[in-house]
């Protein structure tokens, strides 16, 4: 979890960038991606659930694989991750990463 510590300046920048990101267009979203937004906010907020569009694709992939195998403790993500293949996880992660850059 290197680089997880959020320095104030970087946080402000990240939030400012999020503000500039248009709402996620779902037209080209891969299978499963839209449902994530039930819990994960489209923009970073003050809640306990991270915004996916803020995360690098590799971080989403790593987390999902760890949830799926059970190596990362979870309340609900372990149960959800088991419903997705490597390819699906990869597509979802890349879509959120693209949404981040738009």
């Amino acid at each position, binding site marked *: 979890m290197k680089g997880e510590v959020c320095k104030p300046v970087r946080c402000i920048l990240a939030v400012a960038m999020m503000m500039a990101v248009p*709402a*996620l*267009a*779902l*037209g080209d*979203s891969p*299978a*499963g991606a*839209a*449902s*994530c*937004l*039930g*819990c*994960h*906010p*489209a923009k970073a*907020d003050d*809640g*306990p*659930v991270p915004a996916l569009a803020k995360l690098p694709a590799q971080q989403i992939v790593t987390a999902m694989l760890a949830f799926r195998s059970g190596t990362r403790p979870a*309340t*609900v993500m372990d*149960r*959800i*991750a*088991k*419903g*997705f293949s490597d390819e*699906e996880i990869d597509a979802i992660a890349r879509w959120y990463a693209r949404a981040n850059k738009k």
Partner: protein
Amino acid sequence: MVVIGGGFAGASCARALLRQELAVDVTLVEPNPTYTACPFSNAVIAGLRSLESQTFGYGRLRSAGIKVVHRRVSAVETQQRTVRLDDGKQLGYDRLVIAPGVDLRFDAIPGYTEDAAEAMPHAWKAGEQTLLLRRQLAAMQDGGVVVMSVPANPYRCPPGPYERASLIAHYLKTNKPRSKLILLDAKDAFSKQKLFEVAWRELYPDIIEWVSLSAGGQVTRVEPATRTFVTEFATHRADVANVIPPQRAGQVAMIAGVADQTGWCPVDPVTFESKSLPAVHVIGDAIIAGGMPKSAFAANAQAQECARAIVDLLSDRAPAPPKLINTCYSLVAPDYGISIAGVYRPVDGLLTDVSGAGGLSSLNAPKSVRVQEAAYARAWFNNITRSVFG
């Protein structure tokens, strides 16, 4: 584009359609000027939340560019592709989305008419009924008996009645500890049953009594004047009575002709297009969704996938099969949350559980996990109401 119904399914779909950069007009037809959310309304009944925190306006949808019309639908004419409103106006559409929600059946339990809901509230549509049940609980003497009745499947929010029983029991334990709660059930098994039962034994051992179908839980008649439930085996006189009646798709589904003889709406699980009417899509609690439960989370997920499929159909692309997630949290006490999750995909015309995925919170999780899940429940509510109405 016209969307009928401004709840978690309809309002969410209207927003998703607008985001597609299709350059289409989106009109949302919803008779009520505000929306009162059912998730967390059990906490209102238990005096833990205000009804205001459950109530949302349509102002943000309007400022996002959605035309919101507070009218009832009197007819859907699929030949002309128009929706007729109760003021005589007509709305043309390319694709129509209907999110009918549920109607409570006042013809299912003898004695339980719409008028009876004053003496024996259902509180299964959040609003005045929620407050009525809360007032009746607040007025009850310590040592009183609360009786709830729960219908057979399918109905809106499968674990909802048991969350309600838990939070009412929490209220009784805190304020009226000599009181009892009897849960008359038309089923022998229910959602998150083991988790609820473990929590009830721990938190409310002398308060909640669950009467299953085989133990005589099916209510055959009610007498509102005396708040009495009659079952095959016994009569239960309540000081506070809560009848959760059987349900069917909301009335607009019948008006449009998208419901079948079961009272619910069959749809294609890839596009959510009605199996009865072309170019009409149905989403949310009213549909026959296979393994997917009737929940706000599911409604919101279906709304996104329906919007995505509509974009494909309008662009002459074949919609890709969706994958949907559902996560339902229940509070057993204010800081004790449990959940059920599922992942779904279309199989043989129905949304079907992906095997190996989903399931319940761990039965022997430590207290810290229950606290965490209660926090996630609140975070989910904040996120979903913000993304749909905010």
